[in-house]
């Protein structure tokens, strides 16, 4: 009891302290020292209409690389923890196949999700959305059929290949800049026409890599969690 109320008290106190700190200067008027300068030049130097994309892939591309690696590490770690060698469906309670409607719906959804996913990814530098969101849609496209039909499986190996390829492409594109005597992750090919699909240099390539990698990793995460345990 004491712990319970004490904890609540301290949690409330923590929130209160943060409230004090965050109200010490007005909200809605951030200093934006870096932000404003970035807004001013992003369109011309990077050429992405979606400035958040410019930040994610160009200005802070290394963060995104780190983030992809985190997802990769998490997927690898989940694989290490849950293992993948045993995929014996009969071991646990037999999973009933989903109902007909579900299966039909999934069959219908698959191409649609695929299309939507890639659309979101390639338009990432123009409109909201991009590699991450598209990647999730792609993951969903591949995972839903498996969930609906337990007999169907996705090859972890294939996903690992896609994942590795996408990660490699991201880094190699970044390293490609070194060949032009530019810094790591510098966007190549020039900014292009603002708002055009083929603009913002190599950003769409990067986002495609991000999308594939995120998709593959999330799909493998989901599959591993959905697989029944073979051993206790």
């Amino acid at each position, binding site marked *: 009891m004491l712990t319970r109320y004490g904890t609540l008290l301290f949690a409330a106190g923590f929130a209160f302290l943060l409230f004090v700190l965050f109200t010490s200067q007005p909200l809605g008027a951030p200093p934006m020292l870096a932000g404003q300068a970035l807004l001013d030049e992003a369109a011309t130097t990077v050429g992405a209409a979606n400035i958040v994309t410019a930040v994610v892939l160009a200005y802070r591309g290394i963060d995104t690389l780190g983030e992809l690696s985190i997802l990769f590490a998490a997927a690898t770690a989940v694989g290490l923890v849950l293992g993948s060698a045993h995929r014996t469906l009969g071991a646990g309670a037999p999973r009933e196949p989903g109902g007909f409607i579900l299966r039909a719906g999934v069959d219908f959804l698959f191409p649609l999700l695929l299309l939507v996913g890639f659309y979101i990814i390639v338009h990432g530098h123009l409109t909201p959305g991009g590699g991450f969101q598209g990647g999730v849609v792609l993951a969903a496209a591949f995972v839903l059929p498996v969930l609906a039909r337990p007999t169907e499986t996705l090859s972890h190996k294939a996903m690992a290949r896609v994942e590795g390829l996408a990660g490699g492409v991201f880094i190699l594109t970044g390293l490609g800049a070194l060949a032009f005597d530019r810094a790591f992750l510098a966007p190549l090919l020039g900014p292009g026409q603002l708002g055009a699909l083929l603009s913002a240099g190599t950003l769409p390539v990067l986002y495609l890599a991000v999308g594939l990698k995120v998709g593959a990793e*999330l799909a493998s995460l989901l599959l591993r*969690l959905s697989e029944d345990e073979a051993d206790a």
Partner: protein
Amino acid sequence: MAWADLVIVIMVVLVLVAACAALFLKNLLGAAVATALVSLGVSVFFVMLRAPDVALTEAAIGAGLGGLLLALAARRLGLWRIEAQEESEHAGGPAC
């Protein structure tokens, strides 16, 4: 008070209620759903804060994928079985 403000207040209250539900609901699967709802609510806030990218991501990854992960995990933890819910809060899970 403007309408927009009122909407925000209501939303915030709803989100906090959902958060409480996530913490106090006996049914852990329901709690997982509540968590996904919180994510959805937060993504609405992101839209209001002019962050459509973040909103999409939060909705897709935080709510959608996160919810799916939680649901799948809940199934493997045996939390979908109704009879298990009673003791799970006290003993921390079904007895083995």
